[in-house]
Each structure stands twice: as structure tokens, then as C-alpha cells.
């Protein structure tokens, strides 16, 4: 896996949602979340995904994370691990931060041994100290986000999918997480960022994919797309 290789490739990908209704009242619902999406994500690229609410950004992230498969078209993701770094993914509130590190770590396809080897770094990065042994439900929302961010960024994946994570925590931690992301970008980490913060996108990303109503409206370098997007 070197820079310039294609990490994930989408060709004419569509995703439909069908929801069966109740026999007694509702009718079945069907809608197309993504229509005929094609683009390549290269190793070491940092791609921002922009679009209005409901444009299909979350569905696209689910596709990239391997949670769902396309209904038509082709998605190639050979042997790249992806980690979705949304806020508080899968945290169990009743359990301690430490237990949660192991749960999420094994979810991210790490062995228990490998998680154990990373625990100290995660705890230190999340700045949780003795709170790591307390149930997550006692955490402030900033602490929860810090824990989620620390786990996902320490247990590295080949492709990091970041959903609006840049507004995490207090200002000091924001600075720290921004540094981590910048460092990752320099070290050829592939990143897909979904954010409404135009500043963050201009700061961190090289390319932008603009989707509207489930279709690609524009896919180009960051300056070109963001100028057009801000005009619209």
C-alpha cells in the first residue's frame, strides 16, 4: 500500500432503501440514497465530503466503512481496513472506559492482546486518567468524544472515516485532535472527512466530493469545489 494506489474505488454505485410497511396501515417506503456514484479514493488522499443534509453523506460513509453493500455498481476495497470515527460510536454507558476500549478495539478487528498493548496510549491521549475506570455514563460529553477519538486514532486503520469530529471536546483537545489529524495526513493516512466546517475542510483536505440528492455534483481539488459550494 503506497501513495498513489487506489484504496477504495466506486463505479456507478447506487444504494436504495426499502422499508416494508405494516400490512394494516403504512405503505412500503422506497427511496434512492445514492445514484450512480463513481470516484476513486487514493492512498494518502484526504477527501472531504460536502452536501446538504440528506444528500447521502452518511450513506456514503456506511458504504466506505463496509457496513452496507451497493445495490448496483461496483465497490472495490481490497484489503484496506476502515475505521469510522463518529462521535461515541458504540460506547456502552454502563461500562467503564477501559471495558469500552476493549469492546471497540475488538470491533475494529484488533485482538485483545493488541488492544492491551495500546491501552496506556489511548488513556493518556484521551486525558481520562483515573476516570478510565468509571462508567462512561458519568463522563461529560467532551470526555466521551475524547475517548472515542483516542481509540479510533490510536488503533490505526488504513482509511479513517471522520464524521464531524473536529468540534470535539474543549479548545485544548480540539487543538490536539487537529494536530493528530494533520500528522496523519502528512504520514500518508487516507482520510475521508464529513464536515460542515468549511474552514476545517480547507485546512485539512486536498480533494472534495460534493454530493447533492445522492449524485456527485463535483469532485475536484479543494479550492475549486469549495469556491463553487460556498457560492451555491
Amino acid at each position, binding site marked *: 500500500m503506497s501513495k498513489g494506489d487506489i484504496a477504495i474505488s466506486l463505479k456507478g454505485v447506487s444504494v436504495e432503501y426499502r422499508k416494508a410497511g405494516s400490512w394494516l396501515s403504512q405503505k412500503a417506503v422506497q427511496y434512492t440514497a445514492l445514484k450512480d456514484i463513481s470516484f476513486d479514493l487514493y492512498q494518502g488522499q484526504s477527501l472531504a465530503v460536502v452536501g446538504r443534509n440528506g444528500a447521502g453523506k452518511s450513506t456514503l460513509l456506511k458504504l466506505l466503512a463496509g457496513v*452496507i453493500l451497493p445495490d448496483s455498481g461496483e465497490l472495490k476495497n481490497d484489503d484496506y481496513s476502515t*475505521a469510522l470515527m463518529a462521535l461515541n460510536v458504540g460506547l456502552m454507558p454502563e461500562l467503564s472506559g477501559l471495558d469500552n476500549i476493549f469492546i471497540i478495539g475488538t470491533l475494529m478487528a484488533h485482538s485483545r492482546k493488541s488492544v492491551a498493548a495500546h491501552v496506556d496510549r489511548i488513556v493518556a491521549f484521551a486525558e481520562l486518567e483515573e476516570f478510565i475506570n468509571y462508567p462512561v455514563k458519568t463522563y461529560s460529553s467532551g470526555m466521551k468524544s475524547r475517548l472515542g477519538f483516542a481509540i479510533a486514532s490510536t488503533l490505526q486503520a488504513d482509511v479513517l472515516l471522520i464524521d464531524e469530529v473536529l468540534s470535539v471536546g474543549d479548545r485544548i483537545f480540539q487543538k490536539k485532535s487537529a494536530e493528530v489529524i494533520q500528522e496523519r495526513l502528512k504520514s500518508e493516512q487516507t482520510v475521508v472527512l464529513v464536515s460542515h466546517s468549511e474552514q476545517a475542510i480547507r485546512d485539512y483536505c486536498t480533494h472534495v466530493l460534493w454530493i447533492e440528492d445522492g449524485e456527485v455534483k463535483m469532485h475536484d481539488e479543494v479550492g475549486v469545489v469549495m469556491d463553487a459550494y460556498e457560492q451555491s
Partner: protein
Amino acid sequence: MNRNSKIHALDFIRVNVSADFRLEAAQNRLGVFWWFMEPLMMMAIFYVVFGLVLERGGNGFVYYLLVGISSWMWFTSTVTRTMNSISRSAQLIQQIYIPKYLLPCVAVSVEFLKSMIVFALLLALLAGLKGVTMSWLHLPIVMLTQLLFSAACGVVMAGLVPFANDLKFVVQLSLRALMFLSGVFFLIDDKIPQPYVDYLLLNPMANIITELRNVLVDGMAPNWPLIITINSLSIFLLVIGFGLIHHFDRRYPKVLL
């Protein structure tokens, strides 16, 4: 395919089973204490109602009753937890890929371990009140038969429930009906007239409970052809169930939206 599918399955199951136990311990003030108290209280209730008040089946009946209740509690709790295992994780599987077959595996393991506590209590009671016989050596095989059968029922339902939540009601009602048809509170050969005995014995759980009683109370060896038949049925159902879950692996997140 995405490398996340190369999850460390055994580590995942181990971590999640222990998480489920900690979760239950953390939710109640008495915590771990309930794993012993709940089955003991259940046994006490059934013992008082059916053994003492209704005086069913004479003196030795209490032993049959305790075996029947222990076995039945294990069966219903396994089927119920396993059936809900995928639909219960709706939130999580939207966000991160998990091979879905692992979820019922966790559920079966949790209920297995909890039931081992119940069976330890049961064996201690039987040993104290009645004594141990050589036929107890057959117990692991009969228990394995029950483990496979309850897992099989649960796994098949786990694969289907996300598509029609209504199935949960059907299963709950069937379990309630089956409780009375599995001879938990009576001995099938003893109390039931023909031809109904033959019909009742089409139900694997009725047979498993009978076999457990043979082994633990009556000092008999199990009926081997029967054990083999039930295990074959369970394996057949497990193949169907896991096949179903594998087939819909990446469809469940969309269906459970």
C-alpha cells in the same frame, strides 16, 4: 473485501460476553448475587406451588420438577436473548461493520454461562438430597444436546426477526405453550394418555427434559438414537440459521434502519 471482516472472532466473543456480564452486574445493587438468587427463587416458587401445594406426583416428583425447571429456564432464556441479538444491535451495526454471526454466538455463550450457575446449584441440591450416580457421567452429552438445540432455535430466529419484528410475539407465545407441552411440571409417560404421548414427544425439548431426568434422577443412560436424532436436527437448523445470517450480513443495517 474490507479487512474489518478479519475480526478476531474468539476475542470479540470473549470481550462481549464479559461486557454483558459486567453490564448486568452493574445495573443492579446486588449485582452478581442475582445470578444465584433468581434461579434459586424460581426453583423455590415452583417447588412450593407444584411440589407442596398441589402435591403433584408424590414424593420423588420434586427432583423431576427441579430438573425440568432448570432445563426450561436455560432454553427460554437462550432462545429469547439469541433471537433479539441482531435486532438489538441495530444502532451499532449502522456505524461499524460486524460479522453478524458473532452476535448470536455472544448471546448463546452468555446464557450458557449463566445456566451453568443454575446447573451447579441443581447438582449440589440433587447430590445433597438424593446422592450421585454413575449415570451423571452422561450429563455433558445431554447438556450439549440442549445447548445445540436452543442455539439452533435462537439463531434461526435471530436471522429472521430483523425482517419482521412480529416474529418475537409468535416466539414468546410458542415458548409459553411449549412450557406446558414439554412436561416441565409433569412426567409425560406418567400423566398423559395415548396417543397424546407420541405427539408430545415430537417436541425435542420434551425429550431433552426426559433424558436429563433419566440421567440425573433415575440413574439411567440416555436414549442414544434419540440424542443423535435431536443433534442432527439442531445441526441442520444451525446451518440454515447461520446461512441466513451470512446471506443477509450487509443487508441487516439497511433493514434495521
